[in-house]
């Protein structure tokens, strides 16, 4: 195998050779070498090659702008004094910068405690979810047993059924959690699991957390793509399937573990539907952001109703605050998000 450096060298030489050949061909007259059709084809390719990058740049630039527009708007308004919001002479860059909005929102959202709470919830739930989903995915990918197809159909059903259908019965189940002693152990005395983190951890522990169906599906696809010889060799060496899974499959599946973990974190971070159903006091960033409007009018405007125009700076500051952690994570781990999905066999 040639190293990367060598390959680059080869590429250079190849290009030089082609150039030389073209030069020679031109000097001797192209017609001698190529048919008119070929000349036409080549000419067209050369033209497209020259024009297309410009178009591509324009298209991508425009679309990137559309995507980044809300973020730019967020940055622009979050640091802008509220009075300058109605100044028609300001489009993007405010005349002065202020951190007051961020400070106010920080207080209203109780951001420090909220963020710690959310991170703890997220990390525990995501870790549990990744482990159990991967085990299930492996079971579906590599073992043959009766009723597998029906069970897998249930996994697909889990992806398709909107969570809104099951929320109310689930709420009842949590509120009157059946083995009462278990609920008491879990929450420390309470009979209801509502408001405790267990409403998130328990489903995650049993591979039924947020979008668990999708994760099981991803893991199954990924494990199916790994060569079977790996395990057969392990079996012959006397490993039990569980040991094989831990020692052989997990190291091979690192990338897709990371990808699923990251997605899980993002979705738990952004989730407000499930958490708003089961939490009334337990605050997460997404819930706080959802209620930011009401909280702002109560705490900053003494409950008077204000038009959104007046509190837009605080809203945008809140948005900025709550996406910053996830955005920072994305900037650093961006390639795992994208490459992970590409490689993890979803392409199958």
């Amino acid at each position, binding site marked *: 195998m040639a190293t990367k450096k060598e390959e680059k060298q080869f590429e250079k030489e190849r290009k030089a050779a082609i150039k030389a050949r073209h030069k020679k061909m031109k000097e001797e007259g192209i017609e001698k070498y190529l048919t008119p059709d070929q000349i036409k084809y080549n000419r067209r390719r050369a033209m497209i090659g020259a024009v297309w990058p410009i178009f591509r740049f324009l298209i991508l630039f425009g679309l990137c702008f559309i995507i980044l527009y809300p973020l730019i708007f967020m940055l622009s308004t979050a640091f802008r004094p509220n009075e300058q919001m109605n100044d028609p002479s300001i489009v993007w860059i405010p005349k002065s910068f202020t951190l007051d909005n961020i400070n106010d929102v920080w207080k209203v959202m109780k951001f420090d405690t909220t963020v710690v709470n959310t991170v703890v919830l997220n990390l525990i739930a995501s870790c549990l979810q990744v482990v159990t989903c991967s085990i299930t995915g492996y079971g579906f990918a590599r073992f043959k047993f009766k009723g597998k197809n029906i069970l897998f159909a249930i996994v697909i059903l889990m992806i398709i059924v909107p969570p809104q259908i099951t929320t109310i019965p689930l709420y009842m189940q949590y509120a009157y959690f059946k083995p009462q002693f278990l609920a008491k152990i879990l929450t420390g005395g309470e009979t209801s699991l509502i408001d405790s983190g267990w409403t998130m951890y328990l489903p995650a522990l049993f591979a039924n957390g947020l979008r668990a169906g999708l994760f099981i599906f991803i893991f199954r696809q990924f494990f199916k793509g790994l060569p079977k010889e790996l395990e057969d060799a392990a079996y012959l060496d006397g490993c039990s*399937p569980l040991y094989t899974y831990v020692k052989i499959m997990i190291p091979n599946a690192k990338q897709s573990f990371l990808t699923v973990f990251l997605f899980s974190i993002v979705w738990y971070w952004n989730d407000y539907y499930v958490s708003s159903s089961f939490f009334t006091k337990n605050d997460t960033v997404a819930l706080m*952001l959802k209620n930011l409007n009401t909280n702002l009018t109560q705490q900053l405007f003494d409950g008077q109703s204000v038009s959104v125009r007046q509190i*837009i700076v605080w809203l945008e500051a809140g948005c900025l605050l709550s996406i910053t952690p996830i955005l920072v994570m994305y900037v650093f781990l961006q390639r795992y998000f994208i490459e992970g999905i*590409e490689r993890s066999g979803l392409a199958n």
Partner: protein
Amino acid sequence: MSEIEKNTPEEAEVQEVQTSEDTAAAAEAPEGFGEPIKAVKPEKKHRLSYEKRKGLYGYGFIAIWALGTIYFFILPLIESLIYSFNKTTVQPGGMEMKFVGWQNYVNAFRKDQDYSLALVNMLKNTALRTPLILIFAIFIAIILNQKFHGRTFARAVFFLPVIIATGPVIDIINGNMSTGGYAGGSEQFSTMFEADLVDQLLNFLGIYNISDKLTETITSLTSDIFNLVWNSGIQILLILSALQGISPASKEAAQMEGATSWEFFWKITLPHISPMILASVVYTVVDSFVDPQNEVMTIVLNKSTNWEHGYSAAMAWAYFAIIAVCLAIIVAIINKFVYYEVD
């Protein structure tokens, strides 16, 4: 193999596993694997075959999930189906139910003024938007699959909506806050470029007033480009991953034969990514149906916050049944055109 006597019991068990596999192998190639069978005396006492044991291990692997699914998915699902046939009142200690049969369903379609209308709107919107999102995603994925400077950056940006758009941030961006009435980011964005371009373009071409509905549709689609771009992150990713599976050899061969990029797209790219297109369609449809912000979901959730759980469950189930039928039809149709590579 000859050292079998020294093995501990556990290892003997493993050997047993190995033997039965060897037996299977031996059936295929009798000469090569004849010896090991003789060498080990299989202990046949209530031992399961390798295949069966593997099957049992399979159950073991999915046991956690199966337990959880019964408790966290199947039971609630059945429960909510029961709700939908009952009139429910919430009591301390549980839900009180009175059986009313199909009444909730009939009410949803016959008496509720908004529900059927929202349902039809929803279906129309999805039918319009899904092909658009798909074409857009394919287009962008092909561009992002080419080599150019700043490709990593572009990919990162196009994938950004997936990170943000699932959360409440998109609400504020979209201006769909509960207070309403505020022209948020997306609308503001559209008005930035609002120039009635569609009409002007048609007029420029010499077409006047063909159909108000047509221009309206086109206008609504073009002004919706913000949502289009923001909702196609995953689809772009899926198709991009499929595109990378196309071998460079086929591209080279096509160039040798003098195929234009256009021909290459229709004859090679499209068949190759067709399974992923199917996946994207399913994802798009499910995503737009499940979105808590769509009209039907809003109605359903409102009913549920008004403590009419039975009614809300009936609505949700009717809605879900319609989704399922739609999805089945779509998948059946597209499946006819999907090209599966035979390995």
